């Protein structure tokens, strides 16, 4: 399903979610990003094929949350359940996009979130992949400083993504772990931009070398709210980042 998009709008923000990663805050952020770029947004709800297939196993049970009741399930029941969830996602996306005057579209597809998210498309500026934060509903009270992982790799829209995310946190303090480019160089303009943002917002930036990236993502004690990752990262690195990080990931072209 697609809304009427005038030809003048260029660029696309894609938001991929599945049953594990659907969160309203991620939708809000994706719409804000599209609005900041004056681009369209495409919502993709992914029917996890593994989940549907496993639902047909004879002994598969669903443990409901929060009652912890056990109930039998099958593929058709799981599909119905996922379609309902997808419809909710679409409805919320529509509401938010219209409120921000962002052109939007929605699709319900089968597959795997990671695979869909990593597919490169020259029109896509941001791909936001929802991720469950340790499989629990997000707390409404964030009194710890917000944490962002920023992995640079020559992406021109990286700073904009950072600005939108930081703005979404309001006045809350934000810690940014910035993984510098492979060559360790950062353009002068980018440095100025970060400094300016740090002055305007309650922001601290910790700069690390790219070599330390894998150590960071493997450390389960570090909880990020979002990761902003350049698509120019090697594919295996991207795979590793997306698999290990338990937070929404913003892939930046």
């Amino acid at each position: 399903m697609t809304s009427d998009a005038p030809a003048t709008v260029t660029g696309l923000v894609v938001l991929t979610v599945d049953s594990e990663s659907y969160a309203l805050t991620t939708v809000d952020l994706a719409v804000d990003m599209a609005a900041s770029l004056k681009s369209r947004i495409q919502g993709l709800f992914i029917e996890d094929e593994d989940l549907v297939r496993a639902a047909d196993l004879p002994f598969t049970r669903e443990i409901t949350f929060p009652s912890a009741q056990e109930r039998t399930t099958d593929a058709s029941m799981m599909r119905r359940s996922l379609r309902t969830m997808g419809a909710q996602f679409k409805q919320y996306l529509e509401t938010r996009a219209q409120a921000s005057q962002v052109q939007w579209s929605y699709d319900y597809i089968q597959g795997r979130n990671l695979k869909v998210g990593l597919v490169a498309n020259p029109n896509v500026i941001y791909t936001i992949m929802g991720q469950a934060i340790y499989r629990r509903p997000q707390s409404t009270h964030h009194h710890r400083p917000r944490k962002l992982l920023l992995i640079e790799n020559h992406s021109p829209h990286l700073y904009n993504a950072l600005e939108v995310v930081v703005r979404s946190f309001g006045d809350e303090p934000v810690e940014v772990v910035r993984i510098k480019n492979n060559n360790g160089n950062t353009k002068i303009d980018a440095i100025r931009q970060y400094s300016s943002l740090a002055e305007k917002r309650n922001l601290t930036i910790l700069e690390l070398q790219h070599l330390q990236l894998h150590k960071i993502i493997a450390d389960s004690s570090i909880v990020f709210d979002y990761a902003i990752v350049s698509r120019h990262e090697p594919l295996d690195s991207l795979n590793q980042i997306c698999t290990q990080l338990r937070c929404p990931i913003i892939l930046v072209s």
Partner: protein
Amino acid sequence: MKNTLTPEALYQHCDLSQFVFATTDDLTPLDVPLGQQRALEAIEFGIDIEHDGYNLFVLGGSGLGKHQLVQQIVGDRAASEAPRSDWCYINNFDDAQKPRVLQLPVGMGQKFRKDMESLTEDLLTSLPSSFQSEEYRNRRQEIEGDFQERQEQAFKQLDKDAEERGIAIKRTPTGYTLGPVIDGQLYGPEEFKKLPIEEQQRLEKLIADIQIELQDIIRDMPLLQREHHQRIKALNQEITQHTVEQLIAWIENVYRDNVEISNYLAAAKKHAIENVQFFLPNQNAPNVEDASNRVAEFHEYRVNVIVDNTDTVGAPVVYEDNPTYQNLIGRVEYVSQMGTLLTDFTLIKSGALLRANGGYLILDAQKVLTHAFAWEGLKRVLKAQEIKIESLEEMLSLASTLSLQPESIPVKVKVILTGEPTLYYLLKEYDREFSQLFKVAADFSQVTERNADSVNLYARLIASVQKRNGTRSLDRDSVGRIIEHASRAADDSEKLSLHVESLTDLLHEADYWAGKSKCSSIRLEDVEKAIEKRRYRQDKYRELMQEQIIREIKLIDTDGETTSQVNALSVMQVGDYSFGQPSRITATARLGRGGVIDIEREVKLGGHLHSKGVMILSSYLASCFAPDQPLPLSASLVFEQSYGMVDGDSASAAELCVLLSALGDIPLKQSLAVTGSINQRGEIQAIGGVNEKIEGFFDICQARGLTGDQGVIIPAANKVHLMLSKDVRQAVTEHRFHIYTADHVNDVIELLSGQVSGTADSSGQFPENSINRRVKDRIDQLQSLHQKYAGQGDDKKADSDGEDAT
């Protein structure tokens, strides 16, 4: 004994020589009410005595100055008494539906209210600041972090264990599901079926085990959540307690001697600590201006001062002009919010009883009795000695809204009712509780004796009224005339009317005419003019009725002689103006057994007193002329051309005379009019309105031209009541009109007929040719006829065809 009155007997002039003043400016106003000593003493007793039920009922006609006097006495008394308390309603933090009451020293109510408002404002400013502090944020973050960690740790550990054993935990839209994994992908049914049975069984068991662990973790979530909330709550309470205690300490210190306030503050402190979220703004940091605006929202901490005696000197004196139930008892108001009626303790309003608590409440009895439930409410409070404010709608079950049950307030109030004597006696008769609750009656006199002392005091009363109302001063002549007018108003030459309102009106009107004459003081002619003009303004109906007589539409003879016809006198009342007018009474008498028929009574136009008068004259007739035998008489009496109610017995003497005239065929002078009631012995008794009656007949005679024979016969006992108009007095002086007094009906009939009535001798025989002899002979004749018809056994016929036998 009949008597002709001299002009001096017709009017009691005021002796001006007894006055030592030139004008009322020389007089000292009265500081005690004239002629109300009994009432005054009763009021002083009533407000002095402190036992239960000694409330007052001040009774007397309107216009006697009851209310003014009561307010003056009670006001003076209250001013010398110690100030009473302030009363406040405060929130009951244990049960908001049952607000608590506070009794505070005078002035403390408002102070406490303001202090609580300041405290609320302080809380609204300081509490959000405390929650914005670095210290609080750090500690909260610590708790949140710990909670998240524990929550996540449990899932992570299970996730890791499951993954190591080849099982994936996947999130579904409504929960979690588990499945075996190979190469990072969940098994489908086909792949699973390809596995050896043992492997299938192993995986199935493994999944079942992990599922149990997952269920345990999910089940523990609420406990973890609860523990987290409790830790957050404890932290909030700790921060709040610290802030609240600091802020509330000063107010606790101010009111430390008042146990009730101290208890209230302790409850308020506990409530604030437990409900800190109400004090925190939703978004932005607190600012002082916002806090001030939000104070009004915090009803719980407000103080509703329902009785504030700050500006009251001494004990309160309250006069409630509109004593409805709500205005007396108090009420609980509601506000409409989103179509729902809401209330709280700040909407409790006090009534007059509460405002007068510890003092005096003055009420108009009639107003209390005519407002629904007000009388019952008043009695209930006086009996219970406490006020329970509840809405009338709720009391009557007319509204089903959730209402308040405010704590009762002990009441000690002296209630002073003022009202008409009729009302007092009706309440005495029909309301048993009235006697228990209003034990003191202060009875105001309508009149006082007229003597040298009282006349001088009355002159001072005139001076008091004059000064109080700011009218011109009065000279001696005008004072004398007003005193004479007061006697006329009292209908007694030996009394003075105490109707202060009429006196005030007369002074106002005389002052008006003095002003018209451009005089600096009120003179005799101003008073005369005021009296005359007032009479003129009200005189339309009298003139109309007089005109009917003059034009002979209403038949009244004022000369000649006629049998069976007499002029009686009656008084008409139109509003507060009364005047006299003559009425023609005629009689017929014949053989029969019907006695004396009062036609007015037969057609239900006669009142009880009139009927009584007719029965008395029947009795007199029988005892005087037929003591030993039945009276075989059917006589009828009627007020000719009377189309309304006739009441009173003042025409009974005239009725007897006209009956005697009919029986004895005795012509009666139509130039005379008669008034007076009789008793069974034929004695003439005093009647009311004698002046109006005389003047009424005089006016007719004067209009037709006075002949010198005309006059009025009045009871001798009424001589003292005469305060006749100047015209009548003048005519009497010139022998053109006469006032006769009579003691017995024989005197009246002699005056009317010009014949001797005759006194019975020892054998009961009246002298020949006397009036009574002629009556007696006629009755004897009727006896004979009666016996004759009785012998023929035709009694019934004689009764029914009576006219043939007369």
